[in-house]
């Protein structure tokens, strides 16, 4: 059924259609509307049977989900940013225990300086935690990925993180096609756990493992994720058969058939990139787009195939490996048959900085003309950074970094490039 609703509400409805049995919630912007909506559904008994637990921290949220999942319940939670870091120990633990928890991450920057706006630093900080990580391009995909996530998680007995851009998607009202309960039930069978805490068959879960077996346990986690790469296309096909649309999967390509230049990105910025590419195509540029939907496991084969004919690659990412450059671009470079120098990193949109078509157009042209630096910070105010650096050189007690920059900037509501 077509609906014009907020992204968070769409995700909440999709999660509810998946019949979660335990939902743990600790509020953090921009995740709040998702758990608020689910909480209302549980209270109104529209989602039943389901336990909605208001926990006292994200660490507890993931821990309650671990207990619930190990006891055989379908468990769900949502978080973002600082919350994801605060639960990090339990995030790794859920993966290590092989518990198929599904979690939404409403992507948001990480402080200091505190910042509630969107980038991908939070989710990418957890890229090696053992969770499957899926990134939604728009609200329809965010909704669909949640339904796929439960199936994926439970078939593999691995937790799945569905990442959607905070505010840009979570708070945007878009038209979505909401599936029926019958469709979701046909796609997602009841949870049949591989391991369960049950007095009828007592087992110990979470024993200490020494050097004699730890490598094998870790390898199995890796092997399972690589296995997911092979299985996901058939599950996506299943999804298409039941829901009548293509959604999710490993990657999406756009106009790459004869492209010399391929732009790689994750999440909602793909829309702006595609618009820019359309404009540039009209002007004769041979440019295309590769969207990464599944970031973990990394779809090596799909990326390699999509970039096979590319003469240069521009990775536009909302994350930063401080002291190195790009996170996504390093993954891309490892899957690109050409020279690593031909993979350019463009760091963009950190802390919610708007990514405009004008700025994208400019860097893409620079890439095509061979003028793009290996690592570029889109719309960075270089003169301001220089002023702050000068001040730090001159003054030992130069004061707090962020506050100095804000003072340099003066009073503005928002800086749009």
């Amino acid at each position: 059924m077509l609906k014009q609703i907020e992204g968070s509400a769409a995700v909440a409805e999709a999660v509810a259609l998946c019949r979660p049995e335990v939902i743990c919630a600790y509020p953090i912007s921009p995740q709040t509307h998702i758990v608020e909506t689910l909480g209302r559904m549980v209270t109104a008994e529209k989602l039943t049977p389901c336990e909605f637990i208001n926990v006292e921290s994200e660490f507890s949220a993931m821990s309650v989900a671990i207990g619930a999942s190990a006891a055989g319940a379908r468990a769900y939670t949502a978080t973002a940013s600082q919350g994801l870091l605060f639960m990090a120990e339990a995030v790794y633990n859920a993966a290590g225990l092989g518990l198929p928890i599904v979690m939404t991450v409403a992507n948001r920057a990480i402080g200091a300086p505190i910042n509630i706006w969107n980038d991908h630093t939070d989710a990418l900080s957890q890229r090696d935690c053992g969770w499957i990580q899926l990134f939604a391009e728009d609200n329809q995909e965010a909704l669909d990925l949640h339904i796929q996530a439960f199936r994926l998680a439970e078939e593999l007995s691995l937790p799945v993180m569905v990442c959607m851009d905070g505010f840009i998607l979570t708070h945007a009202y878009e038209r979505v096609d909401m599936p029926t309960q019958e469709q979701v039930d046909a796609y997602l069978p009841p949870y049949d756990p591989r391991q369960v805490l049950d007095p009828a068959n007592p087992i110990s879960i979470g024993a200490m493992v020494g050097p004699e077996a730890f490598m094998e346990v870790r390898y199995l986690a890796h092997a399972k994720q690589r296995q997911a790469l092979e299985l996901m296309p058939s599950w996506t096909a299943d999804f298409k058969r039941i829901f009548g649309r293509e959604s999710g999967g490993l990657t999406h390509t756009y106009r790459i058939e004869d492209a010399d230049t391929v732009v790689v990105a994750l999440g909602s910025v793909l829309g702006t990139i595609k618009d820019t590419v359309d404009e540039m195509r009209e002007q004769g540029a041979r440019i295309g787009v590769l969207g990464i939907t599944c970031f973990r496991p990394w779809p090596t084969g799909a990326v390699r195939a999509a970039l096979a004919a590319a003469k240069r690659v521009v990775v536009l990412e909302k994350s930063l490996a401080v002291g190195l450059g790009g996170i996504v671009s390093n993954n891309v470079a490892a899957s690109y048959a050409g020279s690593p120098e031909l993979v350019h990193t463009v760091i963009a949109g950190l802390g919610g900085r708007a990514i405009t078509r004008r700025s994208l157009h400019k860097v893409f042209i620079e890439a095509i003309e061979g003028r793009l630096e290996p690592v570029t910070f889109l719309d960075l105010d270089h003169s301001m950074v220089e002023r702050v650096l000068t001040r730090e050189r001159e003054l030992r007690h130069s004061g707090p970094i962020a506050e100095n920059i804000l003072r340099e900037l003066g009073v503005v509501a928002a800086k749009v490039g």
Partner: protein
Amino acid sequence: MSYQPIRFYQTGTFTVGNRLLPDEQRSVQANMRRTNSLNSGHRACQGCGEALGARYAIDAAMEATQRQLVAANATGCLEVFSTPYPETSWQIPWIHSLFGNAAAVAAGIAAAMRVKGRHEVRVVAQGGDGGTADIGFGCLSGMFERNDDVLYICYDNEGYMNTGVQRSSTTPPAARTNTTMPLGHSPGNRFGQGKYLPAIAMAHEIPYVATATVAELHDLEAKVRRAMGIHGARYIHILVPCPLGWGHDPALTIKIARLAKETGLFPVLEAEGGKLTNVSKIKRKLPVEEYLRPQQRYAHLFKDPERRDVIDRIQQMADRNILRYRLLDDVERRA
């Protein structure tokens, strides 16, 4: 068996001889059909108070729930010595997740059982004092505040023994640990710090709070049984001497636990809804020195020069407990 009004005590102890009791008063451990929930063969040290406490507590909980029990365990000695896989001592469904989240994991298990309609299955969370009073305190307080249907058992050995004897927030004043060495003017752990978790649990006004020691195992079993008869958040704090960390003869574990109670240093009590409902009276008040002397962690107090000032301050703590919790019968208190 006929009613037996006369009580027999084992010589030199205050413990009623189990075999002299009528059947219904005998301990769960005395029953041939006990569950051995924490089975033999684990790797605990000789004289481990925690292993003893856990065995009695969990077997009693198993009996009280007709064996419908699931346990969540914090990281710590109990977890490490019980599950060097492929060996596990646990005969019950058991999960270890992290150091600081046992209360939350247990809350999740309880929620899962509730949503699945398995109301007969009950949940216990357990951890040491570090996992309870320190790193797991947030999760514990949250579990109390939500009144989740979990019995949390803290085995308090007053320090981080698994990592090699470091101070926790339940380490008592003057005690030596590897992070509170007996050096300088005020040797051992500082006075005026630390937390008394049973009172914090009571402040949450949860349905049931109790303390116990491994010296009075009938009492411990009875409290676990009482706790399992109640729904909502429950807390039992068990003092478990640690021969390794406290530096006492492993043969003295039970005696030292008894001395902690009989000196007044460890009040044994019960509370319901935040209100104190029962205290175990001290049978014969003993000076704290009798408790301190057999423990190497207090050895620095008895060296030359003897730190009588410090011993007196510890005695004051015991006296304050005796007054606050009315641990002596009125007659004795006046005397």
